[in-house]
């Protein structure tokens, strides 16, 4: 059973980290694409709270929160955003390609749907090696229109693999509304066509997400094969820093903001101001420490540009 105060702390940590990222983007400290998870934190927070440290996660390009929640340090994630050599991917990946082998975090994938087969393969290896591990594959509802979703759902169910498919349905594939991209908008029904247990949860209620995730993860660990969960959520901010949001009206955003997952839990917990302030202070200290670390870190030496195209011990290393 997850500690609700810890769930609040986790969501707040992701929120404050990303709010700082947006500021840093405006200050041109962070470049490239930046997709923030603000508004959707309850989904990854609830799901991750039910995982064991050894479990694997495959995420999307909107994955800062997932990385932090999987145990990656704010320092390594922030330094990656800065493109510094101390970043989790040595500054080669940036915001969309966060990786951490030690924490079983397999990215960060900027191709919509590209992570599905990876998750299936990780789970296949676990099954063949008789490892007790669950692989969680996060994706947006837009990815369910990709062929790879169908192929991977079929393969996972056919081979009874320990994968947990978590759909973060924020209603828009970039700017295309669900009803304009899916013939069947009931996504759990769509998933159940693969004979896979599938259901829907309120993605703004972190406790409900955690409960649903526990049910799925327990079943998967017990050999029950893949499961699918749709979490209905909403992205409060623009798709990326380049998005003028022409496709949705402000009233819709305002309505959803009334169901901010952090506010909902904060109200339900009714913590005293001192406790809340202490939580905010601790998170702010961690975020500022990460920013300072990224600021002070070095750039990678350009002489290392060709490193890791092939493995260092490969005879192909450094050759073209």
């Amino acid at each position, binding site marked *: 059973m997850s500690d609700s105060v810890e769930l609040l702390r986790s969501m707040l940590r992701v929120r404050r980290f990303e709010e700082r990222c947006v500021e840093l983007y405006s200050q041109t400290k962070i470049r490239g694409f930046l997709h923030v998870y603000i508004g959707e934190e309850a989904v990854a927070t609830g799901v991750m709270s039910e995982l064991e440290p050894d479990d694997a996660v495959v995420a999307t390009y909107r994955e800062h929160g997932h990385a932090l929640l999987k145990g990656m340090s704010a320092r390594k994630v922030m330094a990656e955003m800065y493109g510094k050599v101390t970043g989790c991917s040595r500054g080669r990946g940036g915001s969309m390609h966060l*990786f951490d082998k030690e924490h079983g975090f397999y990215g960060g994938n900027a191709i919509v749907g590209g992570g599905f087969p990876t998750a299936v*393969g*990780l789970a296949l290896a676990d099954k063949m090696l008789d490892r007790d591990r669950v692989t969680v594959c996060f994706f947006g509802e837009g990815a369910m229109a990709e062929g790879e979703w169908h192929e991977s759902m079929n393969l996972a169910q056919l081979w009874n693999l320990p994968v947990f498919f978590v759909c973060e349905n924020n209603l828009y594939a970039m700017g295309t509304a669900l009803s304009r991209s899916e013939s069947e908008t009931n996504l759990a029904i769509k998933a159940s066509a693969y004979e896979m247990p599938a259901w829907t949860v309120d993605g703004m209620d972190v406790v409900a997400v955690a409960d649903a995730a526990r049910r799925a993860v327990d079943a998967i660990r017990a050999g029950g094969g893949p499961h699918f969960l749709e979490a209905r959520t909403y992205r409060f901010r623009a798709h990326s820093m380049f998005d003028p949001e022409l496709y949705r009206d402000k009233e819709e955003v305002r309505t959803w903001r009334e169901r901010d997952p952090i506010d909902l839990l904060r109200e339900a917990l009714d913590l005293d101001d001192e406790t809340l302030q202490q939580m905010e202070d601790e998170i702010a200290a961690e975020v500022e420490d990460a920013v300072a670390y990224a600021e002070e870190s070095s750039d990678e030496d350009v002489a290392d540009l060709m490193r890791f195209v092939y493995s260092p011990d490969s005879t192909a290393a450094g050759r073209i």
Partner: protein
Amino acid sequence: MATITYREAVRQAIRTAMKDDERVFMMGEDIGAYGGCFGVSMGLFEEFGPERIRDTPLSESAFVGAGIGAALGGMRPIVEIMTVNFSLLALDQIVNTAASLSHMSGGQFNVPVVIRMTTGAGRQLAAQHSHSFDGWYAHIPGIRVVAPATVADAFGMLKTALADPDPVLFFEHGALYNSTGELPEAAGPLDIDKAAIRRAGQDITLITYGGTLPTTLAAAEELSGRGVDAEVIDLRTLRPLDDATFVNSVRRTHRAVVVDEGWRSGSISAEISARITEQAFYELDAPIGRVCSKEVPTPYARHMEQAAIPSAEDVVRAAEAAMRGES
């Protein structure tokens, strides 16, 4: 020493690798109960069972990507894509995941997967089943591209590919499966970094790989009868390229013709030609010749298909032009 077919050599490499290493398994379309579209895996399903000789649905992107994922998870997968033509359906996984992951993750993740596929034309299978994208894949950093042309290489290069820490694309030309050669009892892994001189010669260097090696060797024999002593180089690996072997050969012969079943524009033959001019321009006594497939979707009718792909006569003609200092 046993005389076996190229097909049997590939199968033997898979079988011995699976016996030696529990982590090795194979997946692909119809590789199990059917025995493989080209019969490569015949008998392996019975020998190793459905867990390790794993039939997949028709979903190239998912099972190639699952091979990548399984490699990340500690396995040593061999993924068979029935033919290179269908690999286009898995291109995203090959390029955006397999080839990119190591560099993109700052060296944290390597992907030891071998992706085998049949390649090439010549069997009247028409436009959608006759592609030669071996050289096209060689454009991509992060993968190895190998194209064995002999029985010994089919066995030994596959063994080496399976020990490679990074993704290897393994191209088997369909016309080679029934070719025969000798495989020593104690055959083991073979180097996949160096090109091989298949025929030594003094007058001109003919550079090729894979399915056009027999074509080129036949042309060299014909040229020999016409007083031209051709050296034939088998590239074996298209990425990374072993420049030294072909450039050194050209430094001796001062003439070169590249033979490649791929289309000519933007091809591996263009890359080889460029590297020769970059590294040995002043050694050349003639323009570098190229014999490639005609730039048309491969036709079905036999005479039309044969006119579209490199023949020994085409190679002889190009070599004789080079001997005259013409292109």
